[in-house]
C-alpha cells in the first residue's frame, strides 16, 4: 500500500469515526446524565436520514433538509422526554430497555407509514459535489472532506459547551452526582430535557450527514446503535472524551480491518471491545476502574 492510498484510508477511517462520535456522544450524554439507557437512539439516526431524504425530495435543498431534520428531531426529543423518558428516570434498566424497544417498533412502523421502506440516496449540495483529483486514477470527494470539517467543528462545539459554559457545568455536576445537584437547587430536571433532545438531535444529525455518502435504508439504525454501544463501552459511560477516543478507534479499526483482513473485519471491533473489557471493564475514561 503506497502512502497516498494509506492517507485516503486514514481519512476514511477518521471520517467514519467522527460521524460515529456525533451519534455516540448523544448516547453517552443521555446515559451519563439521565441514567437512562436508550435503545431507540439508532432509530433516530435512521429517522434523521429519512427526514433528510424526504425534505430534500420536496425542496431540492440539502441545507434545508439538514436544518429541518435536526429541528424536527429535537422537537420530537423534547416531546418524548416530556411524555415517556421523564418517567423512566430512576426506574430499573429493564423498564428502560423495554420502553425504548417499544419506541423502536413505533418509530420503525411510523417511518414505514410516512416514508415507506425503499432504499434512497440524497444528493449533496451542489457546491460540495465533485472530487479532488489526487492522481490520475485516485480522487477524493469534496463532500467527505466537508463532512470531516463539520464533524470536527461540532465536536469542538460539544466540548466547548460542556467544559466552558454554565449549561455544561450543570451537565457535569449532574453526571457526577444527580441527587446533590438537585438538592443544591440547580434546575437539573429542565436541563435533562434539553440533554435528551440534544442527544436525539445528534443521532439524527449523524444520519443526515451520512445520507449523501451512503444509502438511506430501514435497518441503518440497528447497525449504528450497536456501534455506538461499543463506542460507549470503550470510552466509558458519560464521558464525551471517552466517546471521541472510542469512536476514532472503531472508525480506524473498521476501515483498516476491511483493507487488511476483509473476511474478519466485522469481528475485529468486537475483539477490540473484548480486549478493552478485560483491561478496563468500565471503559477507558469510565469511573471506578
Amino acid at each position, binding site marked *: 500500500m503506497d502512502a497516498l492510498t494509506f492517507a485516503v484510508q486514514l481519512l476514511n477511517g477518521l471520517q467514519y469515526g467522527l460521524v460515529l462520535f456525533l451519534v455516540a456522544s448523544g448516547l453517552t450524554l443521555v446515559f451519563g446524565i439521565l441514567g437512562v439507557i436508550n435503545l431507540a437512539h439508532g432509530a433516530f439516526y435512521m429517522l434523521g436520514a429519512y427526514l433528510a431524504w424526504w425534505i430534500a425530495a420536496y425542496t431540492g435543498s440539502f441545507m434545508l433538509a439538514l436544518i429541518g431534520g435536526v429541528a424536527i428531531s429535537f422537537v420530537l426529543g423534547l416531546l418524548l422526554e416530556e411524555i415517556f423518558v421523564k418517567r423512566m428516570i430512576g426506574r430499573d434498566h429493564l423498564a428502560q430497555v423495554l420502553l425504548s424497544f417499544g419506541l423502536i417498533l413505533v418509530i420503525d412502523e411510523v417511518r414505514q407509514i410516512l416514508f415507506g421502506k425503499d432504499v434512497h440516496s440524497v444528493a449533496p449540495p451542489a457546491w460540495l459535489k465533485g472530487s479532488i483529483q489526487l492522481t490520475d486514477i485516485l480522487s477524493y470527494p469534496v463532500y467527505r472532506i466537508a463532512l470531516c470539517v463539520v464533524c470536527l467543528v461540532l465536536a469542538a462545539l460539544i466540548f466547548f459547551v460542556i467544559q466552558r459554559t454554565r449549561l455544561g457545568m450543570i451537565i457535569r455536576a449532574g453526571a457526577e452526582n444527580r441527587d446533590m445537584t438537585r438538592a443544591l437547587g440547580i434546575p437539573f430536571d429542565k436541563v435533562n430535557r434539553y440533554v435528551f433532545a440534544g442527544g436525539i438531535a445528534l443521532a439524527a444529525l449523524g444520519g443526515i450527514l451520512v445520507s449523501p455518502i451512503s444509502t438511506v435504508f430501514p435497518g441503518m439504525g440497528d447497525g449504528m446503535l450497536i456501534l455506538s*454501544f461499543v463506542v460507549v463501552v470503550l470510552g466509558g459511560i458519560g464521558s464525551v472524551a471517552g466517546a471521541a477516543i472510542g469512536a476514532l478507534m472503531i472508525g480506524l479499526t473498521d476501515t483498516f480491518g476491511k483493507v487488511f483482513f476483509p473476511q474478519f473485519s466485522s469481528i475485529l471491533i468486537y475483539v477490540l471491545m473484548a480486549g478493552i473489557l478485560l483491561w478496563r471493564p468500565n471503559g477507558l475514561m469510565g469511573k471506578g476502574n
Partner: protein
Amino acid sequence: MIRLHPTMLRGLVALTLIAAAALPLLAPNYYVQFASKAMLMGMVALSLNLVVGYGGLVSLCHAAFFGLAGYMLGFMTPESGGASFWLSLPVALLAVAVVATIIGALSLRTRGIYFIMVTLAFGEMLFYLFHDTKIGGGSDGMYIYFKPEIALAGFALIDLEKSSNFYWLVLAMLVGAILLMTAIVKSPFGHALQAARDNEKRALSLGFPVFRLRLVAFVVSAMIAGLAGYLSAAQFGFVAPQMLGWHLSATVLVMVVLGGMSSVLGPVIGAFALIGLEEILKSSFEHWKLIKGLIIIAIVFALPGGIRQLAELVLPRRGDEGPPAAVTPADGTPDPANRRAEAPGTNPQAQTRGEFQHV
C-alpha cells in the same frame, strides 16, 4: 394475589397437561404447529428468566444462543436425510455452551447498563457473523430440508416429520425444562444466585463465588435457549440471521416481564400471551408492529407486574389472606415487581434505587 388450594392447583396442572397432550388429536394441523411455536418461545422466555429474574442481569443476547443452535442443526443436516438427533443436539448445545461461556465471562465483568450494552454487542457480533459471511448462506439464511431422526440401533423411533409427533416432543421438552428450572431455583445454587441478585456485596462477603454462580446460570440458560432454537430450526426447516438478532432478544424480554419474573412458569405464560396477541394483530392489522410497540410501552407504564397484576386488578382479592406484602408466589421466591403491585402505598421507585445508584 390469587391463591389456589394445593389439591386444586395439582388438579389444574394435570388438566392442563392432559389438554395440551390431547391437542394434536383434536385441533387442525395449523394450531398444532402454532402451539409448538408458542411452546418453543415459552422455553426461551423460561431460560432467559434464570438470568434476568433470578440472576438480576438484563441480558440482550439470548436470541444469539437460540439462533446459533438452529444454525448448528443446519450445518449438521446432510443433503440426503435428517441429522441424527442423538448426535446433532448435544453438539449444538455444546457449541452454545462454549460461546456462552466466552461471552458470559467477558460480559459478567461489567454491571448495570454496561452489561446490557456488552451482551447486546456480542449478540450482534454473532448476528453479523452469520449475516455478512457465507458460512450460513449469508443474509438469505439456509434451509434444513429434513427434520432430525430419532433412531435407536438403526430403527426410527419417532417420525418427527409428523407434526403431532413433533408437538409431543416439544411438549415433553418444555415440561422437562420447567422441571429442571424449578429444581435449579430451589437448589442451593439457585438460592445463592438470588442472594447475589438481592445483595451482591453481602453474598460476596459470605464467600459465595458470585461471578462463577452467574456464569453457570448464564451458560445453563443459554443452553436451554439453544435447545429451543434447535427445535425451532427443525420445525420451520429454515434458519436466518434474524433468529440471532437482538429484536428477538428484546421480544423475549417482553414475554418475561409480561408473564412475571417471580415464578418459573410466569415467562412461559407471558410467551403464550405475547405470541397469541401477535398472531391476532398480524391477521387484523397491516401495521401491527406499531400496536405491538404501543402495547409494550403500555406494559412498562401500567403493568410493571405483568399479567399477574392484570389478574389482580380484574379479579377480586380474597380478604382472608393477611397482609398482601407477606404473600410469596408458589415457588417461594419474593419478587420486587410483585410486591410493588400488591402494596400500592409504597413508592415504586424506592426499591429500584439501589440498583440504579451503583451504575
